[in-house]
């Protein structure tokens, strides 16, 4: 329990630093571009960040538990294409959405089964899934994009409710819910516990296997949801959907202060990390900065986030 009392103020400190950074980015770009600090632009950014944000929720939990899921982008693409194919074969669009979610859950179940039950390395398993699922996507749809969904479906990714994109509202609600789960429920405590000391959790009579399994199932489900939202936003399910999204997701998670070896981190941190990377990218886009510089800047930020943690960690000891 003393662990916990130390962790809390420390985490809040960290969040403060990230909020400063976010504020700094917002102020800087407001000065540099007249179009940055506008309602339209902010709503655009919120609309664009949903897929990465959705996946960042289970990713944060998984990283806190001391593992990693690199297959999320491929699960996203796989579910999106499954949905497209189901729809093409005459299934109702909402039934197709269910197909996508089930596909995502199945992928998560395979990950979870291998990692939790058979104690295989998470990175190895999920890299395998990353490659295999992406291959399956190409096999299934022969690389051609699937489009032509009914207008009612575009509500998810393109419509605004009271001036705010519907998908952003959905994301915010899920973040609040997940934050509650991680902070206020036993499940959340188990996840932190597994990340800190898996043995201890195991000997306390808590099923590590089940907790890990749930985490990877969640990851599959959220990746599939992100896939559905992506298809709705772009009106097309293509084979490359979600490629490299895991890098964005992990960047948001790590900038958000989650420790790569687990045990520490928070969803609120991830949310701020997410805002930092989307606003940074948006601002640089608005200024017309070449993506090559954008990559350098994002990488530098990540280094700062990690480097910062290493001296934090020393002072912690």
């Amino acid at each position, binding site marked *: 329990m003393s662990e916990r009392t130390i962790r809390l103020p420390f985490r809040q400190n960290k969040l403060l630093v990230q909020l400063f950074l976010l504020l700094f980015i917002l102020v800087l770009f407001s000065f540099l571009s007249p179009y940055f600090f506008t309602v339209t632009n902010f709503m655009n950014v919120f609309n664009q960040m949903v897929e990465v944000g959705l996946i960042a929720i289970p990713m944060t939990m998984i990283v806190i538990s001391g593992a990693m899921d690199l297959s999320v982008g491929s699960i996203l693409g796989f579910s999106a294409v499954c949905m497209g194919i189901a729809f093409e074969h005459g299934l109702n669009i909402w039934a197709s959405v269910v197909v996508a979610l089930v596909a995502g859950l199945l992928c998560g179940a395979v990950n979870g089964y291998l990692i939790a039950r058979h104690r295989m390395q998470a990175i190895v398993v999920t890299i395998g899934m990353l490659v295999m699922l992406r291959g399956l996507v190409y096999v299934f749809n022969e690389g051609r994009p699937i489009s032509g969904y009914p207008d009612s479906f575009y509500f998810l990714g393109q419509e605004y409710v009271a001036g705010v994109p519907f998908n952003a509202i959905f994301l915010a609600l899920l973040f609040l819910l997940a934050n509650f789960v991680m902070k206020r429920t036993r499940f959340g405590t188990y996840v932190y516990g597994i990340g800190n000391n898996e043995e201890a959790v195991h000997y306390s009579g808590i099923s590590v296997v089940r907790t890990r399994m749930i985490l990877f199932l969640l990851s599959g489900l959220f990746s599939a949801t992100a896939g559905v939202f992506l298809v709705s936003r772009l009106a097309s399910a*293509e084979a490359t959907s979600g490629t490299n999204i895991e890098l964005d997701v992990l960047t948001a998670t790590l900038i958000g202060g989650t420790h790569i070896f687990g045990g520490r981190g928070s969803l609120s941190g991830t949310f701020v990390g997410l805002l930092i990377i989307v606003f940074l990218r948006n601002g640089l886009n608005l200024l017309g*900065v070449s993506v090559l510089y954008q990559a350098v800047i994002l990488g530098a930020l990540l280094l700062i986030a990690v480097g910062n943690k290493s001296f934090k960690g020393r002072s912690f000891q």
Partner: protein
Amino acid sequence: MKKVILTVLTGVMALSLAACGNNNGNNGNGGGSQAAPAASGSASAGSSSASRTYFINPKSIGPAYWAAAQKGAEQAAGDLNVKVVYNAPTEADSAKQINMIQDMLTRKVDGIGVSPNDAKAVGPIFKKALGQDVKIVTWDSDAPETDRQYYVAPDTDKTVGELLAKTIGDEIGGKGKVAFMVAGLGSENQIAKSDAAKAYFAANYPDIEVVTTVSSDDDQQKAYANAQNLIKTYPDLNGIIGFAGGEPPAAAEVVEQAVKAGTLKAGQVAITGIAVPSVVKNYIKNGTIKTDIIWDPGKLAYTTVYVLDQLAQGKEITDGMDIPTVGKVIVDGKNVFIGTLQVTKDNVDSFGF
């Protein structure tokens, strides 16, 4: 607390880095337009200065083809005294590309020239652009079922595909096995070209069999690996057509190495395709590639900026229109064609790109 301050300071430094990057980027883009007043200032003193901004969006940033196009776009910016922002994701990714277009609409550019990674996915964003009275022109790859106003291309995909099929058909004597290498299985221009080539074989060279189509996703290493797999999987392969800039050099490199290693007979695999001359120069001189089809990507981008600028000023796009440095273009309906070039041993040194 010291540490918090230290962290904030590091953050500030990172962002000043961002600001530097921004300056550099602007200088890069502005290089052309800064030269503009000197060039056009004397010609028309009263013309409105660089107030019009266009966003030119290739499929990705990195490949030599798109770098050549960037030069053309920047030259056009200088000649027309407008501002051009040339940017795209580092990988040919539709979602990232659309995010970028969305950001540029927020910036209220006057026109956008897009080479879409996914012809269907750009539909909604083009509709939005039209609503904001932003001109939309597709270039290099089309999105025919959208609200785009014009499509700037070297020639119809059908003509180019047929030309490639005819070239390889003649070279291998009208029969044998041919493999297709494309940059993306989902992009419109690649599908249209390879379909046209297939149809041409079926109609004119019934003895030619298309064994497979492999895609590199615009990744040079993947194109190379694809070519290696091709000659291993089909030891009796007669020809390879590369439908995008990175494919023919990858195929040629792999074939040359296999010939050198003795695993492949010299001259067994004929290669043709679309590639920038400077990249395939050595292969053409060695005879690994006999004919290469190309257009000047710089002129393509130049034409795109020119057409956008005409549209933004409310001027008509007419057939036979003479575009400076590009020449006369063919306008067919909503298409603007600048024409293709055939690169052979004899003229390979005459291209400046």
